[in-house]
């Protein structure tokens, strides 16, 4: 087991290296000069632009830029924000990350709590009304854009009852009840897509497992229905579910750009949004690299969790 984890960790180094290189290339392969755009947005003077060019090292050749970029990635020092003058990594870790993690955690939790039981029941009562409802949500939930759902959640209650979420982000210590609303409502909206995917997957995995011989055996030897479902079926259906949850959490994490912007939560996602809107390149680079690394770590955790869930995978 330990060897397995260590080998995975070692394999991660080239993957990380390739991923950040891919980010570097993708960002530079598309034509357009960052600083010209900065000037277009007319918040800066010519001198500013030259200073920023210097700071960003855009005048350097591509290999030199790449070297600098790698250095930033390794040290985690992305410099200071052009807009606020504050250290990018500092802002990220201290102010922004906790909010995003809280949001993503609750969204994942809601997604699992909504999706998995619904999928199980749909599989147990195949072709019932409930099954059709689950299947419809499973497909429809993926077609409805999250930002639209979020917008409707903000717009419709305001139109009907004049109710809006508390404006201005409050930490839990400042105002617990406002904070809870500000986190849980967005988390619930975010969880819809995850729940939809999980419903679909749980249903089809359960249907597959329910037909297996060992389930019949378990039933035949008189085990309670609940025990058969939880211990025999669910445990076997888990492996693909865990990998789906992992992939989807990565999607959620990236999706915070949209949800945090809609719900004006000052997390990592809205930091990236602000960075892009203000053409604040150190911020954009810092957030992009951090989220990329985060997603790859998440993949590692999923990989490592396989043998714990399913001993058959252990090599």
């Amino acid at each position, binding site marked *: 087991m330990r060897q397995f984890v260590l080998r995975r960790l070692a394999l991660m180094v080239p*993957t990380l290296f*390739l*991923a950040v290189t*891919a*980010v570097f290339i*993708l*960002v*530079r392969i*598309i*034509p*357009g000069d*960052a600083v010209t*755009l900065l000037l277009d947005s007319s918040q800066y003077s010519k001198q500013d632009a030259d200073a920023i060019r210097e700071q960003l090292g855009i005048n350097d050749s591509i290999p030199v830029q790449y070297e600098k970029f790698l250095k930033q990635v390794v040290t985690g020092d992305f410099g200071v924000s052009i807009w606020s003058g504050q250290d990018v990594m500092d802002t990220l870790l201290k102010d922004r990350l906790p909010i995003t993690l809280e949001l993503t955690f609750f969204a994942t939790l809601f997604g699992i709590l909504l999706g998995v039981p619904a999928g199980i029941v749909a599989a147990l009562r195949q072709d019932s009304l409930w099954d059709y409802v689950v299947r419809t949500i499973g*497909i*429809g939930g*993926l*077609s*409805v*854009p*999250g*930002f*639209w759902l979020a*917008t*409707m959640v*903000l*717009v*419709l209650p*305001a*139109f009907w009852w004049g109710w*809006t979420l508390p404006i201005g982000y409050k930490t839990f210590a400042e105002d617990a009840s406002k904070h809870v609303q500000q986190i849980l409502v967005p988390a619930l909206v975010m969880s819809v897509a995850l729940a939809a995917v999980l419903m679909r997957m749980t249903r*089809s995995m359960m249907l597959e497992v329910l037909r297996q011989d060992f389930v019949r055996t378990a039933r035949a030897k008189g085990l309670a229905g609940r025990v058969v479902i939880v211990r025999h079926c669910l445990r076997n259906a888990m492996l693909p579910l865990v990998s789906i949850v992992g992939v989807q959490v*990565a*999607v959620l*994490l*990236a*999706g915070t*750009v*949209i949800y945090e*912007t*809609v719900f004006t939560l000052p997390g990592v996602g809205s930091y*990236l*949004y602000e*960075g*892009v*809107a203000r*053409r604040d*390149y150190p911020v*954009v*680079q810092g*957030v*992009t690299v951090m*989220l*990329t690394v985060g*997603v*790859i770590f998440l*993949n590692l955790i999923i990989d490592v969790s396989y043998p714990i869930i399913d001993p058959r995978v252990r090599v």
Partner: protein
Amino acid sequence: MLQSTSEPAIMAPRPGEVPSPLRLWSGRLAHFFRQKPMGAFGLVVVVALLFCAIFASVIAPYDYTERSGQALTGPSADHIFGTDKLGRDMFSRVIYGARATVKIGLGAAALATFTALVAGLTSGFIGGWYDAIVQRLVDTFMSLPGIVIVLSVVAFAGGGEGTTILVLGLLAAPGMSRVIRGATLQVRGQPYIEAARAMSASTPRLILRHTLPNITAPTIVVGTLAIGNAILAEAALSFLGFGVNPPTPSWGQELNASGRQYMQIAPWLAIFPGVAISLTVFSFNMLGDALRDVMDPRLRNT
């Protein structure tokens, strides 16, 4: 359309008679409509969408910039989707918005399909160390957080249609190339490839003349699904304000947060563009799923 499906005569040409291409296709279409009603629904919506995009100027009662009525009036006979904060007709803006959707959706999906074909076909057919390297790269690209990379690129290169198509297309390609590679591996093992090789056909010829025509089914399926995803991504990007440049209307842009104060008193501004996006994406997904079931049952559950 459904009535014509009940006539089996279309399906079965008399023996010895070669069916005309028109007959063959209408027969296939009728069969598709009966077998996959949801997929057929998707097809109808997709055709309607294309129609709206091409004939927007004919269908829309007003120009998308024309201030044709009072600001923020609800749906009425003159403005069936209501008017926006400048008094522009929302129905016309939604119809014209189909253009950006179609252009970017098809453009990105076409680029993605082409890239995926090049990568998947060569990787699957040539194999060996080349395959190993390409697959490593595909793994890497698939592990990137999509929307974050898109935003990052937009920050450096600026938004607009061209950039959007380019980034969305390039990011969608790796996942699709996996499916194409899988199909290529299957075809490569077929005896007719061996036969062609024995007749000293070159590798490019083997790939282009003998493999490519035999993997069209999975390619069409992943391509269709890619259009839906690209449309969703474009909408999200325009919603954030980095996609299509105003005043060109785009469904995502209509929902942009800057208009939220108006949406709270005029919810039709938020409802119709959102329904348009959802319906379009749903239709492409349904169509893709149905095509997969009909054309290539092996791909089910991918």
